């Protein structure tokens, strides 16, 4: 990537922000309809403690859900790779969970799991685990057949084949799934927070967004949305760097 290419998205964003500010000011658009960037920054500055605490709460749910999704996806993929019966048993239910909108099941989960944080983590995990599961399962199934023959020829047992061949061969697939799961976990966390807010639990950013909406504090709403977008981009980029670092360390990067 050249330096021009690196600078391009930033320049594009700054130009967009400038045009936005210019249009809002020159057309005298009221802040309760569309605030300009300066109004949003000002709203953030006034309320930054409460917004950042809410962001932390959302990120805590996201991180816990990502860890849970990684473990759950990996364990289910291993079970599916180990036995055809397990594969047949798990696959349709994984798809059912994947296609059911989390907004629809979140109220139930919040009732069943009567600890708020845990309930949110469960919802976000349901949203996030599928890419880990399907990617890891694909990776475990894609072991190079010649290497599998080599292991057989040398009398490898199942445990050796799993730990010395199949799992390491699936690692790049798992990491790619994890990167997708990271942003999905954030989406799942916020959706679950929206549902939970109606029940009075409003620690996360979704709570701030709803609250600002009720009070017509539109700049504050935009400030919360901006934080959310930045968090999503950061999670995606961080997991991308993590993926590259692990693969480089592992010598498996092509």
């Amino acid at each position, binding site marked *: 990537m050249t330096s021009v290419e690196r600078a391009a998205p930033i320049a594009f964003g700054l130009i967009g922000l400038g045009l936005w500010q210019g249009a809002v000011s020159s057309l005298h658009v009221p802040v309760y309809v569309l605030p300009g960037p300066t109004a949003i920054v000002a709203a953030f500055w006034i309320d930054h403690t409460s917004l950042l605490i809410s962001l932390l709460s959302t990120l805590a749910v996201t991180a816990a859900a990502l860890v849970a999704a990684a473990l759950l996806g990996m364990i289910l993929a291993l079970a599916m790779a180990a036995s055809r019966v397990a594969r047949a048993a798990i696959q349709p239910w994984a798809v059912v969970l994947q296609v059911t909108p989390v907004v629809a099941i979140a109220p139930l989960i919040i009732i069943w799991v009567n600890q708020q944080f845990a309930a949110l983590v469960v919802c976000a995990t349901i949203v996030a685990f599928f890419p880990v599961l399907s990617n890891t399962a694909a990776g475990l199934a894609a072991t*190079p057949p010649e*290497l599998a023959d*080599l292991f057989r*020829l*040398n*009398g490898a047992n199942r445990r*050796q084949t799993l730990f010395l061949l199949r799992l390491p061969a699936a690692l790049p697939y798992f990491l790619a799934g994890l990167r997708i799961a990271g942003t999905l976990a954030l989406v799942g966390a916020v959706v679950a927070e929206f549902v939970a807010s109606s029940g009075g639990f409003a620690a996360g950013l979704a709570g701030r967004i709803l609250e600002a909406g009720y009070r017509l504090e539109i700049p504050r709403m935009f400030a919360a949305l901006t934080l959310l977008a930045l968090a999503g981009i950061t999670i995606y980029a961080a997991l991308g760097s993590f993926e590259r670092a692990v693969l480089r360390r592992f*010598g*498996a990067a*092509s």
Partner: protein
Amino acid sequence: MLRLTGAGRRFVNGTIAFADIDMRIDAGEFVVLLGPSGCGKSTLLRLLAGLDVPDTGTIVWNDGTPPAPGDIGFVFQDATLLPWASAEQNVHLPLRLAGKSFSETRNEVRATIAQLGLAGFEDAKPASLSGGMKMRVSIARALVSRPRLLLMDEPFAALDEFTRHRLQDDLHALWREARTTVVFVTHSIYETAYLASRILVMTPRPGRIAAEIPCPLPDPADRRTDPAYASLTAQVTETLRAVMPA
């Protein structure tokens, strides 16, 4: 060493890879299987390795015991190394699978690596090695367990001519020294004539052994330029012409 009688292999989709193959491999031979693409050479090697079983016929090992893990070394067309493991770890793999730690087999691993001209590259990952060096690692991995039988499936087909010649030279030298029994599959007449102590020519699918050419090439300093080598390649070419349908 082993004898194949009436061996045939027919896949579930109806493809008959080969039929009615009789062959004998004696200890210390370098047998080259030469045949056109798709005539079942790879399938035959997998059968010798015990990775596949014949539908008809039998395979009998002379001493009566089928090969144990580590008795057979296999070299594939691609190096098929573990990309996350160093050259040394890749070579150690067969011993590791036999439950032997690296520290107790360090000398064997290092010696095999040196034998293949890889000294100094013990810690290199496959991605940083050239095609020829990867193939050397692959051969070292096949030899490290001191196999009774070394099976090689077009190991040099993907290499450039220079690298191929050097690897053929080194393989030939290794074989002359150790006299490991080798069954080597190739499409190349020149490779066949250069390496073989006996040549088996196969017909197109369904493959059969169409001709057998014993080749006691003398061992002059430079086989490639020896007149006997030229006349052997001519003989192999004529045999192929006689065997292949027009």
